[in-house]
């Protein structure tokens, strides 16, 4: 069983975002990047499958600032092969384009199963899973929260809105969009990451030409504006509390 996990990094929400001078993109000066949470679950799910039935896992990450650390952490989790997709990912890259580049690398990996996060909050033109499936000519199932593999097929657990769940069988190879791993990602002691950074190597693979088609143009990026009917409270806790009480009095609740 050969599993490939394409991942990406997204802006860390720990700091407030700022829009740059162009008004069309985030200011990246102080922006930190973090592994997309769904991709972290995809890696954990791959490790769980490997632990049960053996196999090997490759993780592919675009060359963002911090990608090496993310890859070494994956190695500490139990990933066997680390691949960095090199190229210019500074400006926002469309999911179309990223999927095309990644699919070229995945083709060389002879994968049975491709697990990726079902979504990422910076996806500009849709999640990466369906695009990958298209480029690789494989079936795709998204919002998967459980995967079990047996002899050329895999059974997945998929959740639907409204409290309905389904179990389905898919012929391998296939692409799965992971919503959550069967068990939450385990803690990786920092000493293990340090060890992995010494004992594992990152292979580099150049990304091809960016694909521009199928992507909308971005006109403006902005912080949500206050609607006409909204009242915004400001000040410290006490001041805000007073304002809330005032409003509650006005509308006759108090």
């Amino acid at each position, binding site marked *: 069983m050969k599993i490939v996990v394409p991942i990406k990094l997204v802006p860390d929400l720990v*700091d407030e975002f700022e829009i740059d001078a162009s008004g069309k993109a985030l200011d990246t000066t*102080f922006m930190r990047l973090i592994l997309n949470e769904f991709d972290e679950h995809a890696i954990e799910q791959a490790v769980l499958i490997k632990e049960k039935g053996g196999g090997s896992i490759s993780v592919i990450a675009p060359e963002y600032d911090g990608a090496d650390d993310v890859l070494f952490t994956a190695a500490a989790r139990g990933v066997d092969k680390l691949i960095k997709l090199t190229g210019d990912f500074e400006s926002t890259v469309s999911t179309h384009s990223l999927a095309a580049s990644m699919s070229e690398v995945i083709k060389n990996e002879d994968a049975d199963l491709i697990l990726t996060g079902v979504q990422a909050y910076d996806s500009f033109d849709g999640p990466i899973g369906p695009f990958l499936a298209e480029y690789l000519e494989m079936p795709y199932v998204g919002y998967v929260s459980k995967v079990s593999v047996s002899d050329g097929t895999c059974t997945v657990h998929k959740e639907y809105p409204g409290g309905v769940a389904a179990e389905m069988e898919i012929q391998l190879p296939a692409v799965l969009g992971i919503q959550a791993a069967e068990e939450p990602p385990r*803690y*990786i*002691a*920092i000493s*293990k990451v*340090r060890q992995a950074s010494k004992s594992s190597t990152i292979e580099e693979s150049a990304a091809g030409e960016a694909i521009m088609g199928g992507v909308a143009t971005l006109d403006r990026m902005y912080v949500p504006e206050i609607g006409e009917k909204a009242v915004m409270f400001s000040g410290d*806790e006490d001041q805000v509390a007073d304002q809330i009480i005032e409003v509650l009095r006005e509308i006759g609740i108090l």
Partner: protein
Amino acid sequence: MGRAARLQRIEEMLLASGNGLTIQEIATSLDVHRTTIWRDITDLSMELPIQESGNRYRIARDEYISNIKLNQGESLMLYLALRRLMRSQVHLPPLMAQALEKLSLALRHPSAKQLAESILVLQAGQPTDRERQKIWEVLVQGWVERIVVRIQYQEVQRTVIEELDIQPYQFEPAVLSNNLYLIGKVGPSGFLRTFNIDHILKATLTTARFTRPEQAVIESMLRHLWGIQSGQGLTQVRLRFQDPDVIDRIQRTVWLPSQRMDENADGSIDLVVEVADVFELVPWIRGWGPDCEVLEPIELQAQIHDVQANHGGLTMTTKEQKALSFSDEFYTSLDEVFDGERIKVCLQCSSCSGICPFGYIMEYHPRKMIAALRAGVFDAVMEDETVWMCVSCYACTQVCPANIPITAALMTRTKEELLLAGNVPSELQEALENSQRYGNPLGESPRKRADWTNEIKPEIPILAKAKEPVDVLWFVGDYPSYHPRTITSTKAFAKILQALDISFGILGPEEQSDGDSQRLAGEKGLFEVLAENNGKAFAKYEFKQIVTTDPHAYNAFLNEYPKLGITYPVQHYTQFLADRLEQLKPMLKKKVEATITFHDPCYLGRVNEVYDPPRALLEAIPGVELVEMTHSRENSLCCGGGGGGMWLDGFQWEKAHARLSEWRVREAVSASGADQYVMHPPIPEKKKGKKDTEARSNGKVGILAVACPYEAPRFEDAVKMIEEASKLVVRDIAELLVESMGI
């Protein structure tokens, strides 16, 4: 006590004290005048790395080179032990060689008196056998002073007693047994022979002297002695090993200096040795059982064959020796922690489990953990998660009559193993991941670490911007930088520093978590990374000392960072302010009319023995009546936040349905007398109306004073949960000082 002994004693005391000692404390303890101690310390400072901080003296352990003075006999014992060790090494560790060199230097200048004393050491096992004591005495003297010794010698299984004049060349331990041998030249004929010292029946010094040959000559002789036994001529022994595991074992040790390994085409190897006597070889060969086949000499083959035919089934082989189990490996690993080997002297008295605030809930409490270790079933402890109830409060360590470092070794190492296995409660996992990623367990932006200073005037200097040397680097810490409740205490301390006109600065965004609680929660690697980052930030600036309001940070800088080579003088803010009490006192103008009780933080009190400075500060505030709780000073109760407890509240509540902070708050209510009516007598549930409460309240304000950033939020939450605590107020000492200063 003579001066030399006193200097030695002071050195020991300074070494043993984590927090340092004052001149007065040493003087009292040794019952001499302070001036004497002052002089002694000045003298000791010439050769020892003694540090002074706030009138307290301590020895920087990382710079300390032990000054062991050995007599000849002790040197000889160490020399023999080292030689024994060296002989089984494939590569000689440089340290071992250095130690041997130092010891041999010590042996080269003999003094008769010292030697005589050393005999007592050598013969400690048989103190009543004066005859044997005399023999050793004579042999050592003959060896050191190169005097011919006349001995009576009886070989094994022989009745003849020989009388020989020998020149003692060398003492040598046996390779495969614990015997000690003397190699010497015999009589005028001059052939070399080895003597088992136990078989020397009598020894006297003659008047003749001798010259010892070059050491190389003696060493070449030793090559052929298997276990060192006298014998005539050399016999070649060829032993064949087939099993790959056994071969691997055989190849990793030098069994005998003269050995040779012949590799055969079928993968087996022949160990070929030339020995003076095959007698001592037999038990060793038998130890390998069927894995070792004797090819030559024929007589030995026959002898071993007979033995195996009779007892073959019972012979132990390496195949049956399993690798060290996890339990045993863990047990051994505790030796690496300071004093960790003391765990072997556990009395199983269960004082630790009794005093542990959560001992009653733990499936494996400390005493039972040690029992499991001894039984070799520690795996069961690893499957149990109750060790996460441990709040690293050091109560068990404090109470242990055998002085076992239970918290530092057993509990912390267990957490480390659980953590390496990825087996961590999710709350703790989040705090650790935040610490990895953001340098603080709260998951706040590192860029906002100094945001609490935003509206303070005059500005709090951030070292990277101020670019000027300061006296004090104020290490603010995680909760004091980010937690809304604790920021109030932080701002209070900032006001005090400014009022005292202290030259200080903070690191701001460059500061990261001190990492001590993460370390005690088992994440040692993370602690090291955080410490390295802080160490790099410290190194960029000029300052005289560190001051912190966080006892956990204080403990880290005092006891843990120095192990990583990061050493700066550090004080907890209560120590720093107590040292400036004379300057502070006139500023404390406003009365604080309250009964105050002080909660000793575990890492200030029990761990580092700082009990008085916080109390001195509180007593200096006019109007304050300071009272003690039932548990105070070294018996203080933990607030529940230590050792990762700060990030395990949900987990611990689920297990215990009790909060340590509530227990403490009840004690504070009781001690401070705030609203005692509720407790004595309790009001029946029905009558507990608001009006009734007010009518019967004594109206007395009790204050629970704290000096650790974990505590104000923890205790305030507890106050909200306990009805009788409604009149109890939780205040940091810095906040109380500011209140009295009216700033």
